[in-house]
């Protein structure tokens, strides 16, 4: 199974820069303040060098959101994962190429190595016996059992029980081996375990009276490459190297996650050398060109799993007509949006699967900006232009609202271009934006919108199972369990989703999810714009940064970072 999920790639890299005199002095000032940068300002090229024998120096990583949830099994957001990756370990993780790499497990279970039964129901995991928790207690199979049972504990505020709820009869057969049975075959579980199921310490958490609140929640103990140091709320989190780490690294003594909420300020601090890396949400597109000219810094633009798209509510009047959806799609000048508003950085896409994934379906019909064809299509479908140039059919006008997060300037500009594009084909769009905490509440979850511009990571780690997004039983507005806010219903899609989740053979799964992508592209359940991207700044001399499309945050491998 380790190889059976194929490979993911990484987006293009753009490296630049030599510092000018002033910036050199600024970097030097940072070094004088205790940051181990000495000499790094001169390390301008990606010349190969080896990591140091022991941890050296400090990395200041800037994030635009504040990590606040440190129990890795509780509800948290992307930025919290930046801490989880440093403090905790997984049974296995997914590398940038899409491979499952053993971490706490000795090997990734497959049907070939006997870790998985042929029917996918029995899982046998062999664990490392040389791993210790940060407090010195040995890690054992009991910790894995405890973690999986905690997720399913009704008193525990677990983030998600998808996949975990199928786990039954967990047996610790040895301190370094654990077995369990699945209630039903569910192949995406491999990705779920390999993406965000961090293992927590039994010896600490079994003693707490309330699993949702304990000192552990604000001073976590893990088996990861960094130990908890200190947190200054609203400012930073400091982690220290775990010199007893069982894997590669860490190569820096400390990592400081600095919280800088304003993206302009974040970029300025990167520019003035106060931070070494700009993580989530990186550098704004309008600063990328300038950032590339900065000396002593490099900019890495990489793809993410998020797909920026227009989500139509398929139960809303005009959108129920597939001809309307196709005409609207033909009427979008996608490339103009990408070039004018996103500085040409993202690439167009036609599906919910990242183009680097093994499950990506090649050869899907490519979008073409063709307003003439869109007009003809609407004419043929009986949508006639009425007063004011807006089309209507059977008393229903082709007018609708479009919503997105207010304050997101680029998306708001996208809306302006869409208004113009769609006016040309007789569709009237009005803007109805809301703050994040409002729009992503009931408005989105209960399908109260007409259409929304949103970026969604549909993947479960590296798995393309989108049952919660496109399954008929996953429509919250109809009492379903999931996130099918599009209200997409297709018996064929349901069949393919059920089949894909039962299959363990990669070739079979690729066919199944390929068919699903063709179906959803044909039905235009969503109107994809482009695959997400992130531009991150890295100070010259900092080695080891590797974007990973299979994780939600690119500082997943700080353990491999070092100063050249």
């Amino acid at each position, binding site marked *: 199974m380790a190889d059976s999920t194929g490979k993911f790639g990484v987006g293009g890299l753009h490296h630049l820069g030599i510092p000018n005199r002033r910036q050199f002095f600024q970097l030097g000032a940072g070094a004088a303040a*205790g940051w181990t940068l000495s000499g790094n300002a001169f390390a301008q090229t990606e010349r190969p060098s080896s990591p140091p024998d022991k941890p050296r120096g400090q990395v*200041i990583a800037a994030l635009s959101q504040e990590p606040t949830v440190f129990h890795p099994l509780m509800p948290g957001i992307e930025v919290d994962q930046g801490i989880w990756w440093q403090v905790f370990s997984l049974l296995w993780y997914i590398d940038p190429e899409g491979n499952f790499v053993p971490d706490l497990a000795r090997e990734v279970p497959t049907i070939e190595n006997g870790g998985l039964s042929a029917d996918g129901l029995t899982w046998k995991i062999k664990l490392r016996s040389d791993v210790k928790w940060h407090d010195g207690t040995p890690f054992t199979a009991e910790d894995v059992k405890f973690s999986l049972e905690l997720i399913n504990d009704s008193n525990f505020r677990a983030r*998600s029980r998808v996949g975990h709820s199928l786990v039954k009869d967990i047996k610790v057969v040895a301190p370094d081996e654990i077995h369990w049975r699945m209630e039903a075959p569910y192949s995406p579980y491999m990705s779920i375990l390999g993406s965000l199921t961090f293992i927590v310490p039994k010896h600490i958490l079994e003693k707490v009276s309330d699993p949702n609140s304990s000192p552990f929640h604000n001073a976590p103990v893990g088996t990861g490459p960094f130990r908890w140091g200190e947190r200054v709320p609203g400012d930073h989190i400091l982690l220290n190297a775990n010199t007893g780490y069982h894997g590669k690294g860490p190569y820096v003594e400390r990592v400081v996650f600095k919280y800088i*909420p304003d993206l302009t*300020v974040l970029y*300025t601090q990167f520019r003035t050398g*106060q931070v070494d890396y700009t993580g989530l949400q990186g550098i704004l597109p309008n600063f990328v060109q300038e950032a590339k000219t900065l000396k002593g810094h490099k900019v890495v633009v990489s793809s993410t799993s998020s797909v920026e798209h227009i989500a139509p509510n398929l139960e809303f009047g005009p959108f129920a007509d597939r001809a309307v959806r196709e005409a609207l799609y033909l009427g979008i000048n996608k490339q103009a949006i990408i070039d004018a508003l996103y500085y040409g950085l993202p690439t167009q896409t036609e599906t919910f699967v990242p183009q680097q994934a093994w499950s990506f379906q090649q050869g899907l019909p490519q979008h073409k900006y063709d307003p003439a064809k869109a007009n003809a299509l609407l004419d043929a479908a009986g949508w006639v232009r009425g007063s004011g140039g807006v089309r209507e059919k059977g008393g229903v006008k082709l007018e609708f609202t479009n919503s997105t997060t207010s304050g997101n300037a680029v998306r708001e500009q996208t809306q302006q271009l869409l208004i113009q594009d769609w006016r040309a084909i007789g569709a009237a769009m009005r803007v109805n934006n809301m703050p994040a905490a409002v729009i992503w509440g009931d408005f989105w979850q209960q399908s109260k919108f007409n259409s929304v511009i949103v970026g969604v990571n549909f993947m479960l780690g590296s798995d393309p199972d989108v049952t919660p997004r496109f399954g008929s039983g996953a429509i919250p507005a109809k009492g379903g*369990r999931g996130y099918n806010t599009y209200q997409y219903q297709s018996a064929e899609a349901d069949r393919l989703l059920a089949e894909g989740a039962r299959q363990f053979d990669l070739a079979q799964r690729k066919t199944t999810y390929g068919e699903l992508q063709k179906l959803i592209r044909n039905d235009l359940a969503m109107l994809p714009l482009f695959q997400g991207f992130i531009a991150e700044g890295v100070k010259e001399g900092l080695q080891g940064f590797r974007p990973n499309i299979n994780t939600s945050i690119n500082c997943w491998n700080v353990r491999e970072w070092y100063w050249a």
Partner: protein
Amino acid sequence: MARYVLNRLAQAVMLLVIVSAIGFAILHLAPGGPLSQFAASAQMTQEDLARVSKQLGLDRPLPIQYLDWFGRMLKGDWGKSYRDGEAVLSVISSHLGATLELMITATIIAVLLGCWIGISGALRRYSLFDSLATVSAMIALSIPTFWFGLVTIYVFSVTLGWLPAGNRETVGDGSFLDLLHHLIAPAMVLALVETAMWGRFMRSSMLEVINQDYIRTARAKGMPEWRILTVHALRNALLPMITVAGLQFPTLLGGALVAETVFTWPGMGRLFLDSIGYRDYPVVMGILMFSAMMVLIGSLIADILYAVVDPRIRVG
């Protein structure tokens, strides 16, 4: 006097109850909630969200939630943050120091500079200095703090490289000089509007005093000008400033909110903004109550001081 103080205290308590009820209602009736931030996550399903919502008690009717919160608050339990599980009072206290540091520094700058400008302007009414001070104050009051903050960063950090572009300290340093170095720019930005206000109020107050008969009498008696100014004029001109100081707290807090965002200062202002964004109800309510208390206490102290200084107030 005791009756006056008790009366003012009773009014303050009533106001706090009203503020809490209105604040609670507005916050909870606003669309969205603490769990909406997880909506885009492929990991959490609607069922997961509903389960977590129930575990947090968010599925209960609003009045029940309010009474529960209010009852616990009276017992000193202000609840726990939805974001990090920390006790609200602990969350607030961990951010309070940074804000106080910024506000006190800005206030000291504003009071000293503002009073000097105001007194000098009043004594040299319509002079070049007075005109310049008036125009500068108008400009300062019109400049958005956010914009001024960004300009300050651009000039002093990006272009000149003299000051850090933000943060309260260099991680791992934290020496007094380092703290001071980081404090200069945000305190300067926050003090700008305050200085202008103190300057304007001080000028008016001083003008009013130096035109009084007793000043003229003092001059007629041949009292030295410096003595007239310091002993007679300044003391009386500073009296109305007690009220100004008491009422400045909300303005200062509002300014700190912006300055803290621009300068990545880990204070209450940023905590408040973040908590609203996350719909972290317990923390937002905690800050709201804390701020209301501070404003009321500030106003109460000003009133009492004024009543002490001017006995006519107590009767009125």
